[in-house]
């Protein structure tokens, strides 16, 4: 295991070392201590390695992640795993706003709560939140799944495209064009698989599904005369 202490090593040096990893010959387990809320820790990884961050991280932690497995033993600031492509990012504490923003793939697990705009413009990522999520979450979500074991804040799924939303707790309100939908067997299966991957012992049957009413983004022939 390779350990970096951010109270003495520079962040740029750390990220460069992580980018230079060749998993066939390099150390595959990394440990980062004293993150002290620094921004951009472990961004742009592109190798099948595992990174443990021992403390609270700042903005954009594990952004643009590919293949790597990053675990934060603390809270994260704005935009954790933003634009993630693949791999797994696990946050043991809470996440600030815009967690998993625009992410295309991979799995983001937040064991605490996520603040506003969780999964904003998500494009294929799976996000599993053990606690609650803040307002405006999954705004313009295009693809992927957002699973929430706690409650959801105001305007969930506003202007939603085709992301799948599953919430166990109370939803403060649904955003424009977001509606509750029937849980069909394939949804129970999809949700069950995500909960298992996240290591959560939850019953998929206790969740409700929300999705797009497809009134906002679909072209309607009735409007043809407007063009």
């Amino acid at each position, binding site marked *: 295991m390779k350990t970096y202490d951010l109270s003495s090593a520079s962040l740029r040096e750390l990220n460069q070392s992580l980018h230079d990893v060749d998993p066939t010959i390099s150390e595959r387990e990394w440990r980062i201590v004293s993150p*002290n*809320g*620094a*921004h951009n820790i472990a961004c742009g990884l592109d190798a099948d390695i595992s990174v443990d961050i021992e*403390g*609270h991280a*700042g*903005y954009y932690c594990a952004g643009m992640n590919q293949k790597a497995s990053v675990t934060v033993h*603390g*809270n994260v*600031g*704005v935009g954790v795993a933003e634009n993630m492509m693949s791999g797994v990012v696990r946050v043991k*504490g*809470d996440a*600030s*706003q815009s967690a998993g923003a625009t992410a295309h793939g991979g799995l983001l697990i937040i064991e605490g709560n996520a*603040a*506003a705009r969780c999964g904003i413009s998500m494009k294929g990522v799976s996000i599993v939140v053990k606690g609650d999520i*803040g*307002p*405006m979450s999954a705004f313009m979500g295009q693809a992927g799944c957002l699973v929430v074991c706690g409650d959801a804040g105001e305007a969930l799924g506003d202007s939603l495209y085709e992301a799948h939303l599953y919430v166990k707790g109370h939803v403060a309100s649904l955003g424009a064009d977001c509606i509750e939908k029937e849980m069909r067997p394939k949804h129970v299966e999809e949700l069950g698989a995500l909960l298992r991957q996240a290591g959560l012992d939850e019953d998929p049957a206790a969740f409700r599904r929300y999705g797009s009413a497809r009134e906002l983004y679909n072209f309607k022939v009735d409007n043809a005369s407007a063009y």
Partner: protein
Amino acid sequence: MCGIVGLYLKNPALEERLGELFEPMLIAMTDRGPDSAGFAIYGDEYDGGVKLTLQSDEPAYDWAVFAERLGDALGGVDGWFRNANAAVFKLACDEKQVRDWLKHHTPELRVLSAGRSIEILKGVGLPRDIASRFNLKAMRGSHAIGHTRMATESAVTLQGCHPFSTGLDLCLVHNGSLSNHNWLRAKLKREGIVFETDNDSEVAAGYLTWRLAKGGGLTQALEGALEDLDGFFTFAIGTRDGFAVVRDPISCKPAVIAETDDYVAMASEYRALAGLPGIQSAKVWEPEPARIHVWERDGAKVEAA
């Protein structure tokens, strides 16, 4: 972008170290606001009348001569000291009496704060330089709030620096930008509130002054702010007994709180809190949007607005 920080000590044994604990918090937010900085520090309580922080643009201003004139006119000065281009005066009379005298006799001086406990010190420059100019690290007290500024809505001047005084022992720091400040400033001017600048945060401060003068207390004034201020904001409000934090409902301006048995600290980013003692075991969380969070000597409370 701007940075805001606040530190409220629950453990009186730490009061000797307030400045030493608070200075690194302010400096840590330099990336968010390198053009000006300021802080309000509460301590050295004076119960005999009013304590004012005055500031002069003239570095060689003769505060001793001023103190003598002020004492002769208002029946004596209970105590005063100079700190760089500012000076703190303790006077056994009411605030209005002093302000009226200052307005007529020394209009060149600026009143940065008034109250029993508060002292506001601020200036244009790097947070590190402002902190060192006023020797922040040696200061003691019960709590402090601070601001590092990156100007967006108005000029980089002393008048645009935070904290803004909003009444006796009250002040405000702001991260964000208000979009209805021109309209609101005009409205508040008609109500008799005086503004020195075209700064949006000064309007938020003026708004609180106006609401508080109508009675009802700080929580009610902040509820009004959530209703009437349009734009982005995280506010920290220093009070005689503690501080309050409010974020607008959209909450794109950040805030993090850390609490231990010894203190409550808030900052725009966790980085500013990372050096506090016991932070590894502190409870750390984000204050919810559109809620009024207050920490005072009689305990914490969170109110739905």
